[in-house]
């Protein structure tokens, strides 16, 4: 695993939530491989290696995207839609982490291909536990799609 390899893309506009999430992830030693995008546009530029991220390569996609829904510029649902409709990014696990437990958000999220939907618990202990579980599950327990496989699929297009 070289330094280029990124574990988590955290899409979060709120400084407080960002700090709390980073705090929780840091405790699990996952924080050193995190990139934080502060709005939907930045998240998309990062994932699609464009704009200020033009130098990035598709060879090193994040292993997990933690996505908030209420975001400036491009909202979370749109970010999700674009990730899941592009062959090069659609296999990246996207976990929606939001304050909202609205049914319509849940339905829309899963319909667009979200891999998981988590309501951020108000209680900090629970929040920490949740973040830890999500991180460990998707980065350690879960077997991701082989990198070669993605490339072959893309090449054949």
């Amino acid at each position, binding site marked *: 695993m070289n330094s280029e390899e990124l574990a988590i893309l955290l899409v979060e506009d709120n400084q*407080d939530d960002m700090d709390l999430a980073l705090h929780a992830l840091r405790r699990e030693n996952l924080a050193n491989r995190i990139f934080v995008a502060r709005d939907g546009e930045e998240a998309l530029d990062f994932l699609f290696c464009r704009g200020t991220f033009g130098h990035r390569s598709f060879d090193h996609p994040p292993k997990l995207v933690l996505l908030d829904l209420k975001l400036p510029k491009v909202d979370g649902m749109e970010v999700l839609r674009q990730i899941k409709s592009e062959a090069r990014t659609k296999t990246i696990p996207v976990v929606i982490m939001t*304050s909202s437990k609205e049914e319509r958000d849940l339905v829309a999220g899963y319909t667009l291909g979200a891999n998981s939907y988590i309501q951020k618990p*108000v209680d900090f202990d629970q929040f920490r536990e949740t973040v830890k579980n999500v991180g460990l599950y998707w980065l350690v327990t879960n077997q991701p799609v082989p990198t070669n496989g993605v490339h072959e699929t893309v090449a054949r297009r």
Partner: protein
Amino acid sequence: MANGIEQLAWMAEADGSISWYNQRWYEYTGTTLEQMQGWGWQSVYDPEVLPRVLEGWKDAIATAKPFGMEFPLRGADGSFRAFLTRVMPVKDPHGRVVRWFGTNTDISERKQAEERLAGQAEELARQAEELARSRQELETQTLMLQSVLDSMTEGLAAVDEQGKFVIWNVAAEKILGMGATDLPSPEWTGHYGLFLPDTVTPFPTEQLPVLRAIRGEVSTTEMFVRNHEMAEGIWIEVSSGPRKNGDGVVCGGVAAFRDITKRKADEREIRKLTDELEHRVVERTAQLETANKELEAFSYSVSHDLRAPLRHIGGFSKMLVEEFGSTLDPTAQHYLDRIQSGTQKMGMLVDELLSLARVGRQALNRQPARLNAIVAEVIAILQPEREGRSVEWVVADLPVVECDPVLVKQVFQNLLANALKFTRPRVGTDGSAQAETPAPTPCAVIEVSHKEDEGQLVFMVRDNGVGFNMKYVDKLFGVFQRLHRAEDFEGTGIGLATVQRIVQKHGGRVWADAELGKGATFYFTLTAAKQIESKSNGATAGGQ
């Protein structure tokens, strides 16, 4: 000479005694001179008239005046015939009566003719009288019919089979503004200004009710009338039918009609009001939908925007405790604990308020649900809350009912959590050091059961907890209403309000019964009551 005449003839002496009869007398009466001489003639007289005859005859003799009289004489065959008798005195030169000369002329033929004539005259008079009487009767009836027709508020027109008007009452003239017309029927529509309900198409002649009536049809028709005699057009309703003679053969038609302009206006007004009402309902519904959407947006933003800062307060105060706790003095730590518990409480409050709002907004998703499965699930969820306690659950066999399982689960979750909470002082006596306590406290018992009350399923959650004073039962289901102090029993005061909202959404009722220190029972139904009046054991949380 006297013997030759057709009449009966006789002669009497001055004193009236008859001395001679002619041959006809004897022939007619069948008598002899011997029988008749002197005053013997009386035997051929009708005894009924004889006294009158004698009186007249004797008066004539006494006054020496001629005598004339009609009376019957008996013939030889015993039957009487009418005769006119005339007697003339024969006087000497000194004017003294020397004898009397009398004749009896048979007048029975004339008499009969007279009688016949009199009979005919009488019959004629009787007929004339009868005619006069029936004419009077007819007049009376006509007058009555006329006054009936005139007193009617309905217009009445009758035609004979040729279409000539025979009746046209006062009201008809008042309603149509004109009297009966002599015009032929094709000109009636134009004459009276009759139109179809569209108010512009002239009424087709062949469809005119009174003409349809002549054809034997019964009909009820609405038409619009506007002619130069009226200020404004009017609406009339015409009922018509055939007129039949005694043999049941159609001999004309009758049409009754009334002014329904007012009724039409009322109908229009009602329709307008209905339209307005509908329009208003649509408008209000739209407003309500907008309000609902706003509420939804509000709930969403409460969900998102309130929860986030709460998480931050909680999170950072926790981090403060964890990272700098050792350097803080106990009071500062205590304050941080208070911040933590405040944050938790507010988090619960926000969550429960949201779920209450969601109940109001969501459509009911009715489906058959096994209540025992729901209750078991709820008991499992509540497991952490009875950690270290001895609680006896008594769950009866519950039926499968049509309901929204997600919402009903919320009902049981609230009620069972309450039961669990308010039985907390019931610690039980089993297997602990308290076994030697002189007055053992029973352990917590929570029962879930159902019964049928007047055809309705009533579900019950009973506990043997602290109960409450029924004095405050009215407050039980109100939002933020609490019957216990927060130090004794924590809570938001939203749970039972949510229960009530869910039950009412199902068309049911929820009520409670309790005794302070003994326990409480909550009852609820999930269907609308079949009876208007329904007995309940406790206070009812009725829908508002």
